[in-house]
């Protein structure tokens, strides 16, 4: 099954720049009269969707879209080879570093947010990766 990632933004131009500069993604196609940008180069295609602040994401919701820093139950981890340089690049592009890289048995983790208030992480796996914390190891 293919996975597509959709990210709401309120400024498609700024979003294209950020996702290109912060993660090294490329702009694929512009879709739907330019309101959607397809960003390629990661293992899943990312679609940046223009959705103005205040609009309702679904009927019956208590509040509309808000691009100040917010919590969502789903976030993206970007796996990188050098987490310090990845943080440096993302911060230069406009990300906010919320926690510097920390080390764990499985690798390193840094927590950031994009200019649209969405949290994301960089992860740099150790040689063992999640095998270091797995209850059941894959063969």
């Amino acid at each position: 099954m293919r996975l597509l990632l959709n990210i709401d933004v309120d400024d498609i131009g700024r979003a294209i720049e950020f996702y290109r500069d912060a993660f090294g993604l490329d702009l694929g196609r512009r879709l739907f009269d330019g309101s959607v940008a397809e960003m390629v180069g990661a293992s899943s295609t990312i679609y940046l969707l223009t959705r103005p602040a205040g609009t309702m994401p679904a009927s019956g919701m208590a509040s509309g879209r808000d691009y100040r820093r917010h919590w969502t139950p789903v976030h993206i981890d970007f796996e990188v080879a050098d987490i310090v340089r990845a943080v440096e690049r993302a911060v230069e592009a406009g990300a906010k570093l919320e926690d510097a890289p920390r080390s764990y048995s499985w690798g390193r983790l840094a927590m950031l947010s994009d200019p649209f208030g969405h949290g994301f992480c960089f992860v740099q796996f150790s040689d063992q990766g999640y095998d270091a914390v797995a209850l059941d190891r894959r063969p």
Partner: protein
Amino acid sequence: MTDAQDPFHAHIYYDASDRTAAEHLHSELRANKGAGDLVDVIFVGEMTDRPVGPHPMPQYEVHFFRAALPTVLERIKTNRLKALVHRLTDDDLADHTSEALWIGEPLTLDLSLLDPPGQNQGIARFGKSDF
């Protein structure tokens, strides 16, 4: 295990072209450290208008705990200044090289002046003094 009390340094660089911005941030940090969103900033060193230690250009040193990292970085970026931000561990060389976070174009440091492994003098003077 790392935590919110991990010690960090920011070395904030400037030259004649951005000394005013650097001075503005220096004053703000000194006036507000230890309170509000700068509660975890505990020391702001002197503006040193000459190369010192491994640093090839004028700079000042800010000591803070991990929890202050977001707000310190935001202020550096807002003021469009160049900075080296690093944690203090027992590996001074790694702190200033592979683990160093640069805001702006990196500078070439004089690595020969860093402490040998296991002897980071910066830890002892954290929160107390600069060079």
